[in-house]
């Protein structure tokens, strides 16, 4: 491993109300600068809860999260300046156009109008959305919305990007476009943490895959790229998490 630690998670626990057991159960995790980390696991493994705690969307029941040495719980605004988050849902205003959405979220990051316009043009072009950027997002296809969902998180050029299942329910073209974009920003030095159920996607994109089950980290795979990577990942995944259904 090389580079500084961008994300340091220590002893993080998340318990929801009266639900039995912990959704996230004493997790320790380091993510280094420039890494492309995949969080994989069956349904209910705690992937989304963990990513929500790291990004400050949810508070932890116990433990700490440092991002670039800043405590998420204590100085959220400092942390939020340097991260981008792509939620699992299409987190956009359907009644607004793509540009209006980008403008709104850019302003929340304190960006000026000119900067927003320049970054929007670049990202919309890059995602193949420029021609329809003045249309309301609600009129778009799922794939287009997913691509906009992604580039909205990249608008302020964050050093760390979190993605929660960013390619759910879209066609191969849009999925490939998202992969290429993610590979591109990762190569440029952006640290990426992402959750998915798609093993072949994780095998292609990730430099390291952490496997979670029942709120804990149960294993880690680093050599997924190259021939047979998906099969190796699948074997490890099923070996660690078993074949039982996770009907919570």
């Amino acid at each position, binding site marked *: 491993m090389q580079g500084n630690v961008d994300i340091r998670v220590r002893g993080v626990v998340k318990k929801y109300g009266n639900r039995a057991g912990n959704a996230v159960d004493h997790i320790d995790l380091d993510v280094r600068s420039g890494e492309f980390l995949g969080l994989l696991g069956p349904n209910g493994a705690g992937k989304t809860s963990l990513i929500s705690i790291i990004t400050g*969307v949810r508070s932890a029941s116990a433990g700490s999260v440092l991002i670039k040495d800043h405590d998420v719980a204590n100085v959220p*605004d400092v942390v939020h300046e340097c991260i981008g988050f792509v939620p699992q*849902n*299409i987190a956009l205003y359907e*009644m*607004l156009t793509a540009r209006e959405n980008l403008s709104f979220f850019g302003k929340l990051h304190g960006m000026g109008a000119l900067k927003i316009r320049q970054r929007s043009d670049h990202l919309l072009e890059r995602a193949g959305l420029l021609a329809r950027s003045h249309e309301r997002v609600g009129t778009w296809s799922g794939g287009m919305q997913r691509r906009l969902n992604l580039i909205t998180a990249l608008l302020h050029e964050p050093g760390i990007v979190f993605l929660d299942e960013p390619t759910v329910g879209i066609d191969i073209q849009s999925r490939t476009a998202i992969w290429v974009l993610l590979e591109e920003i990762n190569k440029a030095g952006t640290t990426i943490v992402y959750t998915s159920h798609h093993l072949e996607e994780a095998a292609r994109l990730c430099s390291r895959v952490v496997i979670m089950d029942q709120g804990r980290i149960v294993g880690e795979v680093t050599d997924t790229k190259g021939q047979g990577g998906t099969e190796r990942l699948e074997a490890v995944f099923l070996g660690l998490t078993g074949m039982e259904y996770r009907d919570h």
Partner: protein
Amino acid sequence: MTSRILAHIQKELLLLLRDRGGLALLYLMPVCLVSIMAVVQDAPFKDFSDKQVLVLYRDLDGGVVGKQLLEGLNDAGPFMVTDITGDAGTTDAIFQERVRTGEFQVGITVPSGVSEVLVKSSDAVVKGLFGQIAGDSITAAEPDSAFVEVLIDPVVKKAFRELMNAQVNRVLAGLSADRMLQDMTTQMENLTGNDLEPLRIQEPFIRVKQRMAGIELSGTHVAADSTQHNVPAWTIFAMFFSVVLMAGNMVKERDSGIMARMLTMPGGAAERIAGRVMAFLLVCVSQATLIFAIGVFLLPILGLPALDLQAINWLMLLLVTLAVGAAATSYGVLVGAFSTTQQQSAVFGSTSVVILSALGGIWVPLYIMPKAMRTVGELTPLNWSMEAYNAVLLRDGNMAELWPYLMPLLIFTAICTAVAIFAERITSRK
């Protein structure tokens, strides 16, 4: 921070402009409500000032009582009298049926012989009086009594019945007094041997002079009528009804993941809530402008009185509108912060506003409610809002008089906003 609040304001207004249903809810619904309710409530507000009580009248006596009672009713104002005296086809049963079925609210029958009773009774009283003066030992005969029959439609409210009795009694009392004065004049002529001018009381010696303790315009006073009540009332209702849209938008943001995205961005719940409150405050001011314009320009076309704004203090009107808008929008964010589904926010938001408006004197003025309801109503923000508008529009109130209504509205705003911010901080990061 300011730029983020401005971004939230701009976003809220853009979303609203694109939401046709929301625009209809915020602007079209109150315009319809104020027009319909002002027309519906016009008659009750006019009370008995216009000719609106339909009276079926028949004189079976043919004497002075029937003639003068008819004149008295026609002169009184609120009565529209249909005289069927001499109509042989109208039997007692038909007469009663026309009132019972509501064709007329009141049926008045002057029975045969009433004038004779009046003459005899007056004569007895006056002769008795003058007998005492002359030292006669003869005791005056007891005066007779007779009744004018007043038949009332069973659905007519009590106030109408009392008005009717008072009016008929006033005419009959005047008639009795006139007759006695006439008899006394005759007796005086007999005593003195001189021809005297007959005495007649045209008007009571002491009368009532009524005036409004409020805004005076060119000698007339601005008083509560259907327009003056309904325009501010439905403005307040419209502002508070924006809770449905505000709370719905907040829940939608949480459901869609937009809230999750915003939670990973700089800025907190206070900025999000402040942006929303300010955006909807602008909406509230625009609602008030529209509904007041309806009161000035549209309601007169519908045959209603125009909203009278000639002598009001515009600064105070703006102040009241801002205070009411702030209270309404803060209530909206409070409901939004605690609602977990859009359905919940819509049902609770709309129902609570309808209940609060009924209690707060929006539908009907608070002063006509029972005491217990009045006490409850006086504790609602919609009533403080109504009283604040009344203070500016009708009572010619100054700031000191406005303050007792503005203060609770501002406290209500502060509490709702603070609780909403606290709740959003807690619930969004659970």
